[in-house]
C-alpha cells in the first residue's frame, strides 16, 4: 500500500514537473524570440491533446518491441531517478543505500534507451541521431560520475539522504565549486536539450524522433521533460542541500531549489549553441574530464579529517 502511494507520488511529481518545464520552455522561448506567445499555460495541454488523437505512424519493418519499450523505459528511468531523492527528512520513495550508483545506472540506461529509440524505426536519420548520441552521452556520463563521487566523499556514504545530511552546515555547491556546473552538462545531455541535443536535433529532422508521432511522441517528449525534472531534483539534493533549509518545511525547499535549477537549465538550453559533435567530444575529454578530476581532488582534500 505504501509502495503504491510512493510510486503514485513520484508519478504525480514528474507529471507536474513536466508541465512546468513545458511552460518554462514557452516563456523562455517567447522572451528570446521576441514574439509574445499566446496561452503559454494552456499550450502544453493542447499539445498533449493533439498527440493523443494524432495517428501513430509506422515505418517499414521496425523493431516493434523496442519501438514501444524505448520511450517507456526512458520514462521509467526518470521515475527511478526521482524515487531515490529524499523529499523530506528520512522520506524518499525508495531508500537505497547505494542511491548514487542507482542514479549512475539511470544515466547509462538513458543512453541505451535513446539509442534503441533511434535504432528501432529502421530509418536512416534516427539512426544517425542514436549513433552520435551514444558517444556524447557516455562522455557526459563519465564526467558526471566523478562529480558524484566527489559529492559522496564528505557524506562518507552513497545514500542520497546522507549526502543531503552532510550539507547541513555547508552546501556542496560552495564546498566543491566545480561540481554543479559540470553536473549541469549531464542534465542537458540526459534530457536531450539545447547544446547537448545530439539525438533529437533539427539538423537530422528531429533525429531519433523523426519518425514518431501521436502517442509515441507524447510519451517520448514527456519522458524528456520528466528526466530533466528528475535530474534537477537530484542536482539540488547533491549540491544545494536538498530538502534542508530554515523556516519552511523540507518539501517546499526541495521544490524551490529544483524549480530554480529547472529554470537555469531551460534558459541554457535555449541560449547556447550546439557544438559540432567532434568539438564537443574534444571539450568533454580534454577540458571537462580534467576539471572533474580537479573537482574530485578538491572534494578529497576537503574530506580529509
Amino acid at each position, binding site marked *: 500500500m505504501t509502495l503504491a502511494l510512493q510510486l503514485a507520488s513520484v508519478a504525480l511529481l514528474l507529471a507536474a514537473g513536466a508541465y512546468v518545464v513545458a511552460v518554462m520552455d514557452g516563456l523562455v522561448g517567447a522572451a528570446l524570440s521576441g514574439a509574445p506567445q499566446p496561452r503559454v499555460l494552456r499550450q502544453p495541454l493542447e499539445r498533449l491533446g493533439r498527440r493523443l488523437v494524432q495517428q501513430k505512424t509506422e515505418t517499414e*519493418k*521496425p523493431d516493434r518491441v523496442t519501438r514501444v519499450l524505448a520511450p517507456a523505459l526512458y520514462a521509467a528511468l526518470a521515475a527511478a531517478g526521482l524515487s531515490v531523492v529524499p523529499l523530506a527528512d528520512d522520506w524518499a520513495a525508495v531508500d*537505497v*543505500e547505494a542511491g548514487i*550508483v542507482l542514479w549512475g545506472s539511470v544515466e547509462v540506461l538513458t543512453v*541505451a534507451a535513446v539509442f534503441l529509440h533511434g*535504432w528501432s524505426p529502421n530509418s536512416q536519420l534516427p539512426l544517425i541521431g542514436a549513433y552520435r548520441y551514444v558517444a556524447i552521452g*557516455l562522455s557526459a556520463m563519465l564526467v558526471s560520475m566523478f562529480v558524484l563521487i566527489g559529492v559522496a566523499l564528505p557524506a562518507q556514504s552513497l545514500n542520497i539522504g546522507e549526502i543531503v545530511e552532510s550539507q547541513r552546515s555547508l552546501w556542496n555547491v560552495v564546498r566543491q565549486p566545480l561540481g554543479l556546473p559540470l553536473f549541469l552538462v549531464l542534465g542537458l545531455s540526459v534530457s536531450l536539450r539545447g547544446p547537448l541535443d545530439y539525438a533529437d536535433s533539427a539538423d537530422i529532422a528531429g533525429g531519433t524522433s523523426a519518425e514518431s508521432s501521436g502517442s509515441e511522441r507524447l510519451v517520448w517528449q514527456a519522458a524528456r521533460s520528466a528526466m530533466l525534472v528528475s535530474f534537477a531534483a537530484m542536482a539540488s539534493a547533491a549540491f544545494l542541500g536538498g530538502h534542508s533549509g530554515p523556516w519552511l518545511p523540507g518539501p517546499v525547499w526541495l521544490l524551490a531549489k529544483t524549480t530554480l535549477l529547472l529554470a537555469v537549465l531551460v534558459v541554457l538550453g535555449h541560449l547556447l549553441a550546439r557544438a559540432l559533435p567532434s568539438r564537443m567530444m574534444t571539450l568533454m575529454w580534454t577540458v571537462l574530464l580534467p576539471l572533474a578530476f580537479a573537482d574530485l581532488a578538491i572534494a578529497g582534500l576537503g574530506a580529509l579529517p
Partner: protein
Amino acid sequence: MTAIDAAFWALGLIALAAGYRVFRTDSMVRASFLLLASFVAVGAIMLLLAAEYLGFATIFMMAVEMTVMALFMVMFMMNPAGLNPMNMVHQPRLAAAAGIAAFAGLAVIPLLTDFPDRPADRQADPIAALGNELLGGSMLIFESAGVTLLATMIGAVILSSRSGRYGPSDHGSVPPGLEPGGEPAGRRPKSEQRDHSDGGGHAS
C-alpha cells in the same frame, strides 16, 4: 512462496531466456541488448540478495558495455534494423553438448554438496564492509585490479589505433633501413616473398 521468491524466479527466467536469445537472433544490436537484459535481471537478483552496491554496479557497467557493443555493431554493420538473415553458427552440436555438460557439471555441485545456511546479516552495512575490505585487508588485490585496468586501457588504445611501430598499421610496416633509403633492418618476415603488398606487421 514469498514475494522475494517469486521475484527471484521471474528474474532468473528473464536472465536465462534473454541470455539464450542472444545467440538465436539475427541482429547483433538485438543480441547486445538481450545480453543487457540478462545482466540487468542478474543485477536485480543481486539486489534481492542484499548486495545493493554490486547489483547497481553490475547494471551500470553492463549498460555501458552493451551500449558500446551495440554501437560497434552499427559501426561495422550499418544496417538500421535486422540484418540479412545469416547463419553465423559453427559446430552447433559440439557447442550445445559442451554447454549442457558445463551446466550439468556445475549444477551437480550445489545439489550434491551440503552447504551451510548462513545468510548475510541484512542489518549490517555491506557497502561499508566492502569499502573497508577493498582499502584494508585486500588492498593488494584492489590495487592490482586497478593497475590491470590501466594496462588494459593503454593496450586497447595501442591495439586499436592506426599508427603501428613503424607507421600506419594497415600499411605493411617495416623497420627503417640501416642507412637512409636502404634495406629494412631486422629479420625479414617470410611472407614477404609470397605477398608483397602485405609485409610483416605487428599484428602477425
